């Protein structure tokens, strides 16, 4: 389409897509830092690997599509996808799986539909789901570096040994100097606490307080909850900076909380987990503030976003409680993506002059 350049809007708000993307990444940092504290460097390795593959794939595909790849990389959208993907997949995932997921996300889910702004599905979650379906074992293992050596000396997950363990998990067979002295990483150190919620587990933070442990002590088991609080903090930052609107997070969290409250019956046979665990025991906060708010694949009308959040909240709760997958945010978000165009079509705002409050007008017979 030809655009006449003679009169454009000359003044613009100091806001840009690349700055928005940077702020989203910035808002992720509290959650990432807490993850590193509790679960070692695995998440950082994931993010670094995913970013490298994402940028490379983005550049290659943009060149193939005869676009300016350097300018295309400037919008930071591939980096945001990579960061969210790196956060979502379990730490210690072998590098080839990280590569598979993110290349699929960028090349197929994003660019085969037309690139930035055109993809109907969230690329990071599509990549995650591909891996979950194809490699369920790797994707449900949550590697946590061992805290003791063979000779039972305590080591820090953040020290050199911790880094080596994370590197070994991501790059199996990497010839590291002290690899032999490290204990093999357990296939599964812990899953998300939701695996326990059917036994009506209470908040780890509460039990830590009762047992006198520090909230930040790794053995207190408060990791998941604090990481969720980290993402909540980041999400509030995004809300305060008006990067995202409140509609999607509030409606997701509201739906999950409502369902969990209504269906939670502590003394009956059917125990579906406390509302608190539903909100802070898994990836709900990450999903509500960072994943579902991806504007490209979400509903774009404000009322549509409220319904979109309800769809996702329903998906999260139902899949968790009655489905076979424990962590359901990715599936629920893709379900929401599917509903988004229809919701947008239904929820169009009433245009000026089409609503109920209209001035009475004459027939206009005076118009000569």
């Amino acid at each position, binding site marked *: *389409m*030809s*655009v*006449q*350049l*003679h*009169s*454009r*809007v*000359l*003044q*613009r*708000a100091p*806001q*840009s*897509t690349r*700055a*928005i993307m940077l702020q989203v990444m910035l808002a992720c940092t509290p959650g990432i830092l807490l993850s590193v504290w509790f679960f070692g460097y695995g998440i950082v390795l994931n993010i670094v690997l995913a970013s490298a593959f994402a940028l490379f794939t983005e550049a290659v595909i943009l060149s193939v599509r005869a676009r300016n790849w350097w*300018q295309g990389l400037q*919008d930071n*959208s591939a980096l945001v996808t990579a960061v969210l993907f790196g956060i979502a997949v379990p730490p210690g995932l072998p590098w080839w799986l990280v590569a598979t997921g993110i290349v699929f996300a960028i090349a197929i889910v994003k660019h085969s539909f037309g*690139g*930035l*702004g*055109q993809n109907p599905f969230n690329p990071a979650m599509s990549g995650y789901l591909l891996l979950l379906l194809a490699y369920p074992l790797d994707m449900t293992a949550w590697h946590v570096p061992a805290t003791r050596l063979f000779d039972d000396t305590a080591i820090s997950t953040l020290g050199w040994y911790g880094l080596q363990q994370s590197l070994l998990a991501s790059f199996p067979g990497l010839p590291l100097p002290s690899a032999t002295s490290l204990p093999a990483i357990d296939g599964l150190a812990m899953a998300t606490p939701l695996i326990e919620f059917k036994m009506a587990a209470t908040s780890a933070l509460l039990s830590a307080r009762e047992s006198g442990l520090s909230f930040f002590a790794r053995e207190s088991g408060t990791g998941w909850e604090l990481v969720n609080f980290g993402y909540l903090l980041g999400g509030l930052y995004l809300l305060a900076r008006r990067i995202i*609107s409140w509609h999607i997070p509030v409606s997701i969290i509201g739906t999950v909380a409502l369902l969990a409250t209504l269906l939670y019956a502590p003394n009956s046979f059917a125990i579906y987990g406390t509302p608190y665990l539903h909100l802070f025991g898994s990836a709900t906060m990450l999903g509500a503030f960072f994943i579902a708010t991806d*504007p*490209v694949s*979400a509903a*774009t*009308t*404000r009322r549509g976003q409220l319904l979109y959040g309800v769809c996702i909240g329903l998906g999260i709760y139902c899949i968790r409680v009655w489905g076979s997958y424990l962590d359901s945010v990715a599936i629920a978000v893709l379900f929401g993506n599917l509903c988004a165009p229809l919701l*947008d079509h239904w929820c*169009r*705002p*009433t*245009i*000026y*002059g*089409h*609503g109920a*409050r*209209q*001035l*009475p*007008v*004459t027939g*206009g017979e*005076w*118009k*000569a």
Partner: protein
Amino acid sequence: MSKLAHPVRGRRVHGIAGGITPAANKAASLRSRIMPCPLAPLYTLPLTQYKSVPLTPAVQAGDYVQKYQRLTTSANPDAAHVHAPTSGRIAAIRNCLIADRVETLAPCIELVPDGADTALGCSPVPDFRKLPTSELFQRIIDAGICGMGGAGFPVAQKLRLAQSADCQLLIINAVECEPFISADHALLRERAADVLLGAEIVQTVCRAARCVIALKRDMHAAISATRSALAHSTVEMLLVDSKYPAGAERQLIEAVTGMQLPAGSLPLEAGILMLNAGTTYACGQAVVTGSPCISRITTLTGSALTTPKNFEALIGTPVTFLLELCGVKQHDHTATVLGGSLLGVELASLAVPSTQTTNCLIAATSADLPQSEPELACIRCGYCADVCPVRLLPQQLHAFARNHAHAQLQDYGLTECIECGACDYVCPSHIPLVQYFRAGKQELRDATRHFEQAESWRTRFQQHQYRLKREKESARERRRPESQPTSAPVSRHSPAFSREQAQNEIAAAVARSKARQQARTNRLLASVPKSSGDPEDSGGVA
């Protein structure tokens, strides 16, 4: 209808949807008072009329004219005529560059002032209430005033429509919500009483039951001046939210009445007349002083000017002359904008005159108006929908406009877009949305026209076919009665058709063909000029 006629006691202002709050940038030009403008070396007076045929000049090159003298004639009794802004000689009547949304060539009268500024006599009126309405209206018609807020619609035409349309409510629009422009603010600050006088005169002419003057909440000086002037007036004052585009016609109607103008209808159909504050002032002056409109208040601002201020600029003053009055910092001056920073036009050439619609000139530095950044893909963030005062979905319209999806463009209300540019302003991907929408609207208009054309051609073709069929049938009808022709030609397959007969027929046909060919050759020879082929005659220029 009657609801509009009653004053609203609580003065409750109704909020409008969306809107943006860009930096106002008005303080610099409001520091000084409205300054009179010295005489320029040349005045260029455009003869164009809003969506109408241009005026006919009533003077010739070389004529001497006096200030206030009417220079044009028109078949339209309500045309906004051009008057001489000062005394001098007509230098030429020719096509000059003017800025009317875009810079185009248009017929203009060029006037070289003699410096004497001798004026025709005017007949001032101390109290307009003693004049009959028809006389008031005639004075406004004679003043040649155009709408100073926007497109420049002749005020006389608007008032005549208002008289026949049962006007209930007159809204004086002094909202001036676009950044940089401060002409109406300055006008109200210094001449609020005159503006209110104009409002009362217009109210009398259009017989509106109620008159409201709307200002923006942050125009403090103008508000206090208006408030003190209101003591002697029946006009009501209303303060609207300080956001853009609170002063857009339909949005202001919603703010004042709390109700929306139905889609596709004009304010006058709902009994509302809206006039800009500057226009109202000009109407008042036309009646009270009896002089035509030869000037308007123009804001000269922008960081590239040493002393930004408001001038009472004579119509036709060259833009360069106005800018130089404020001292242009040449090396900082990157762009000149006619109008505000959102709806303005970037002037490619400064050789254009100021007109009745020139409310603002911005001599911008790169800090005022940064270079446009490259357009990125839409990420559907929806900021544009949040600020749209019409509650459209620009992100969806943009996608439809790119794909030329005409049905969806119509369905999503593209035609309701007022092109205010709020969506453009907030777009983080720097997409020139308004340009897409203008192009989309044009496409819709073209598509409608093509469809109508195709329909009309189809009908014509069908009628043609029908007529041919009818003619054929009637011919057959006519032939039928003489059913037995007396000498029917012998069929070729009948035994009477002998070989000899055939040979004769062929020979005759060949002869006919030869004769035709000969005739054509003769005709050709006759048509060739005699001189052709003669080398002596063809020379000369060789």
